[in-house]
């Protein structure tokens, strides 16, 4: 009975799914297919190499400090780091005096203790990197209705991670002269509207953020590294990898220890397993006499022979 109902229900599902398939196929074959401009012009991030890549990856502190310089001199004009406090900069090699100085150069929103009016004061090490805008509406108004996102987690919140960030920062192109891999020019309807900027690394090709890194030497690196646009983009991407995953280094280190421990445990448990089963086979074969039925026979034989037991 269940089988008859089952077959009927099965035929029902198969038919309705087939019905959808049929119409879907007819529609698919009948429709004209042209790939959307987003498909044709969007390019995957370039492959950069970062010190933090791979299972043994560690942060390059000098690069993180350079990236922090780029953030504080360029990005922080629009973007906050809500989950990163100034004190966290100790993790990338700044000392306490430097951190106090960095924090005090930033105005953070507060309330005037005398009047209760909102005001700002110089930052303290415990403060987070604030947004330059008073609120989201203010951020939208100043940026063609696209509020600049908080950057703390941006590397983990975008497909492609740090590669994507570095590619995007260096990926702005002139929409009038740009040709994709097939040599096609950008269709007029995909040209950036007023206030937008063309960038083939951005999923829908046009974004509100103007090119932030425009010329060599925009930032003067404290360590003397030549600040090319490419260098700055990679450095800030590395810095944002740290803000998104500050525990990456300890995770990799702990991971290595755990994996080595578990490898040893796996080998030991393999030998334990083989050992138990080797004796098991002997024991199982040898338990013949210990089986209840055999014990009973043996007891009976003992009784027959007059042996106590």
């Amino acid at each position: 009975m269940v089988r008859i109902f089952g077959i009927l229900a099965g035929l029902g599902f198969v038919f309705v799914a087939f019905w959808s398939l049929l119409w879907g196929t007819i529609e698919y074959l009948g429709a004209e297919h042209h790939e959307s401009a987003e498909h044709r012009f969007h390019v995957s991030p370039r492959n950069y190499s970062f010190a933090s890549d791979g299972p043994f990856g560690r942060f390059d502190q000098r690069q993180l400090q350079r990236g922090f310089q780029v953030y504080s001199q360029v990005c922080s004009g629009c973007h906050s780091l809500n989950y990163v406090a100034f004190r966290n900069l100790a993790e990338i090699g700044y000392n306490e005096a430097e951190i106090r100085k960095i924090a005090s150069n930033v105005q953070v929103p507060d309330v005037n203790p005398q009047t209760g009016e909102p005001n700002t004061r110089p930052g303290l090490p415990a403060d987070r990197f604030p947004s330059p805008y008073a609120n989201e509406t203010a951020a939208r108004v100043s940026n063609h209705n696209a509020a600049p996102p908080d950057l703390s987690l941006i590397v983990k919140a975008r497909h492609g991670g740090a590669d994507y960030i570095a590619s995007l920062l260096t990926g702005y192109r002139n929409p009038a002269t740009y040709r994709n891999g097939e040599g096609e020019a950008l269709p007029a309807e995909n040209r950036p509207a007023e206030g937008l900027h063309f960038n083939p690394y951005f999923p829908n090709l046009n974004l509100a953020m103007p090119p932030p890194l425009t010329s060599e030497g925009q930032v003067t690196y404290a360590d003397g590294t030549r600040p090319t646009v490419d260098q700055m983009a990679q450095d800030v991407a590395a810095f944002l990898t740290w803000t998104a995953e500050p525990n990456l280094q300890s995770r990799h280190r702990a991971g290595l220890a755990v994996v080595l421990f578990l490898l040893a445990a796996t080998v030991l448990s393999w030998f334990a397993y083989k050992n138990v089963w080797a004796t098991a086979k002997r024991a199982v074969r040898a338990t013949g006499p210990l089986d209840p039925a055999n014990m009973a026979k043996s007891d009976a034989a003992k009784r027959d022979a007059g042996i106590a037991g």
Partner: protein
Amino acid sequence: MGFPWAQQYEPKSGFMRWIDQRLPLPRLVYGAVGGGYPVPRNLNHFWNFGVLAGVALGIQIVTGIVLAMHYNANADTAFSSVEHIMRNVNQGWFLRYLHANGASFFFIVTYIHIFRGLYYGSYKAPREMVWLLGLVIFLLMMATAFMGYVLPWGQMSFWGAKVITGLFGAIPLVGEALQTWLLGSFAPDQSTLTRFFSLHYLLPFVIAGVIILHIWALHIPGSSNPTGVDVKGPQDTVPFHPYYTAKDGFALALFMLALAAVVFFAPNYLGHADNYIPANPLATPAEIVPEWYFWPFYAILRSFTEDFILPAKLWGVIAMFGSIVLLFFMSWLDPSPVRSGNYRPTFRLFFWILVVDVIVLGYCGGKPAEQPYVMISQIATIYYFAHFLIILPILSKVERTLPLPNSISESVLHGEAAEAAPYGTPAAATQTTTA
């Protein structure tokens, strides 16, 4: 329960005897997972996955309880409380990554466990109740995992909750009221988050309870085995401990190794980048996809694109739930007396097609709802339902199966007559007891 030759618990110390006489818990454990549970001696490594699933649940409960100490079930602060765990709680990143990836690994081992059952006919008499309780656990797992994914209150959390609860909205007449009742509001909201957190904390303990029933029901007939032949006597079994505890121990080490590799070196690989963006009811993500373990069912849901008497969306919902509900009827849909797929050549062929089919469904479920993925998932959906509801019922009646071995030990010992000889014969009796 168990076989008559099961070893009885004998307390090794006065203390254990004292306990055992007043509360026979040691006896219960000994009979359940100790030397007192005789298990077929021929189990292969696919029989490790039940224990692995149990361990995975344990990991989820332990990490989850600690995470709950730091998590904030509040729509305004949930996201930042997760970041607080990641950044400021000692080893919080480890707890959270272990919990998030532990869920994925729980599903991996459970899916292998379920397919093991499908191949070896573990749903057949006398183990129907084991199978049914297992499916209850599976449903509870899916509910728990879904609600857990909502808790970080990222973009995928929010929109996933909206889409999945929206499925209930497809039910005629009561749908919308039901959806509002589930969410506690008209869209995912503070009330949704707090009730999901409450249930997410509750359900794992319900799962643990049903697992006890699952194991209890299993111990009535005892474990099945790769031949599907019933245990005939003591020569067919070994005690669970130490033989299968040792074997499970090795499997557990491998499982932990794989889990550690992902937790420490690719913790976000199985997740979605969008869930690191705080929930925003005003911005719909480009694609809304559930976690990977729901993809096969998501593909079935989206395969129904045309109205046919009922609206397409309702068909999708019925089919998605139907694809799981039909598993409850396996024992009756496939009444072939031969349990193991090893002795059912045609069944085996269809089984492997099903495995590929479910993988294809999973692949399509993770892709955007556009061609050719929709067509592929429609074909895969047709096979899925045809396999369980049409092919198996017919196959079980018409298939010519291979001859079964007479006993487990015969199949294990490959006809070595002396070793396979029943106990008490000279060949066995001459061996000395060494253990």
